[in-house]
C-alpha cells in the first residue's frame, strides 16, 4: 500500500536528522537486499548506483517506508536548501511508481531518443479524456463527487498545459510540437497518456513550489498514485505500443 506513515518527503528537512536517517537507511536497505537477494541481486550494485543525495537510499522498497523512523510534524525549517527537499521528494515518489509504467517510460525513451520516432498526434484518448475518465471512475467508486480529486485533476491539467513545452518533450519532439500545437490550442487536447506519464515524473519537482503541509502532501501523494494505478490498469488502451517513424516535418520535408 502507498501509506507514508508520517514519513514524508519533508522528513529530511531537519539537518540533524539527515545524517542519522541516511545511515539507518543504508543499514536497512542492506538488510532488505540480503533477504530479497533472489530478485534484487540480479541487478547488481543497486545500492552503489544511488548518488549520495543523502536521502534516497532506502526508498526502493515499500517495507522501508514503514520501518523508517517516524518523524515529528514538519515545521518550516530555515536554512535547509530547497534543493535537498526536492531531491528527496522525487526519490520517495519514484519508489512507488508502478513498475509497468516505468517500463512504459523506458520504451518511450527508446522510441524517441534512440529510434527517432514520435507519437502520432493528435492522440486519442487525450490527456483531457483520460483525466475525465479517471474522475468518472473515482465518482463511481466513491458513489459521490469527490471535490479533492476534482481539484487535483484540474491541477494536473493546468500543469500539463504549461509543463509540456517547458519540460516534457524530448528534443526530437520539438518540431512536431511547433507544428501541432499552434495558437490557443491546449496540449492536453492533443497529447495523450505517453506525455501525461512524463508529467508524473516531474510532479515532485513542480509540487515543491507549493510547499504543502505534511498531511496534505501525504494524502495528495496517495491520490496521485491512485491515478497512476488507473493508468496502469488501462495501459493497453491508453498507451501506444508503436510510434511513428518521424512524422511529416521532422526531416524538414513537409507533407502539406
Amino acid at each position, binding site marked *: 500500500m502507498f501509506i507514508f506513515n508520517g514519513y514524508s518527503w519533508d522528513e529530511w528537512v531537519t539537518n540533524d536528522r539527515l545524517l542519522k536517517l541516511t545511515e539507518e537507511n543504508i543499514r536497512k536497505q542492506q538488510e532488505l537486499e540480503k533477504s530479497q537477494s533472489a*530478485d*534484487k541481486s*540480479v*541487478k547488481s550494485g*543497486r545500492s552503489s*548506483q544511488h548518488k549520495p543525495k543523502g536521502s534516497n537510499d532506502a526508498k*526502493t522498497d515499500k517495507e522501508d517506508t514503514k520501518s523508517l523512523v517516524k518523524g515529528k510534524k514538519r515545521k518550516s525549517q530555515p536554512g535547509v536548501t530547497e534543493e535537498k527537499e526536492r531531491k528527496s521528494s*522525487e*526519490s520517495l515518489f*519514484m519508489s512507488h*511508481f508502478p*513498475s509497468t509504467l*516505468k*517500463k512504459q*517510460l*523506458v520504451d518511450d*525513451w527508446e522510441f524517441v531518443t534512440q529510434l527517432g520516432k514520435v507519437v502520432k498526434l493528435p492522440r486519442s484518448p487525450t490527456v483531457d479524456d483520460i483525466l475525465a475518465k479517471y474522475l468518472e471512475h473515482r465518482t463511481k467508486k466513491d458513489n459521490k463527487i469527490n*471535490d*479533492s480529486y*476534482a*481539484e*487535483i485533476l*484540474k*491541477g494536473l491539467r*493546468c*500543469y500539463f498545459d*504549461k*509543463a509540456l*513545452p*517547458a*519540460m*516534457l*518533450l*524530448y*528534443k526530437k519532439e520539438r518540431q512536431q510540437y511547433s507544428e501541432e500545437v499552434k495558437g490557443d490550442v491546449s496540449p492536453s487536447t492533443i497529447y495523450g497518456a505517453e506525455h501525461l506519464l*512524463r508529467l508524473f*515524473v*516531474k510532479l515532485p*519537482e*513542480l*509540487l515543491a*513550489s*507549493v*510547499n*504543502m*503541509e505534511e*498531511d*496534505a502532501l501525504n*494524502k*495528495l501523494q496517495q491520490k496521485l498514485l491512485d491515478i497512476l494505478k488507473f493508468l496502469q490498469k488501462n495501459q493497453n488502451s491508453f498507451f501506444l505500443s508503436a510510434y511513428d517513424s518521424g512524422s511529416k516535418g521532422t526531416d524538414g520535408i513537409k507533407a502539406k
Partner: protein
Amino acid sequence: MEAPADEEQEGISAQSPAQAPLSSASSLPKEQSQVELELRVLQALEFYPPSKLKGIHRHFVLYGLMEYLRKSLDRQFSADEVLQLLDRFFNLEMLKPEDDDKDNLTQAEEFSLPESFFNKDD
C-alpha cells in the same frame, strides 16, 4: 454574514459584532464557529499564501487549503466554499500571479528520465 474585508485584515477580534444580530440567542454559537472558521483560514494561509492562488499551482494550493480546513474543523470543504471564505479577506481578482516566473517553466529544458527507471527489476 458578510464581514467587511478591512475589518478582518487587522486581525481577528474575539467578537465580531458587525456580523450577527446580537439580539438572537442562537447567534452566539454561530459567531464562535464563524470566528473559528476564519481563524483556521488565516492559519491555513500561513502555509498557502494567497499569491499562489493565481499561478499554475493554484489548484494544488486550493487542495492544500481544503485539506487543512477539513483536518482542523473535521468536515468536508468544497473548493468553492474555500474560495468564498478567502474572498472575505482578499479581493482574489486583484491578485497577480507571483510564481510563474520563478518556476522552471520559462526556459524549455529537455525531458529526462531518472536513472533509477532504467535499473528497475522486472
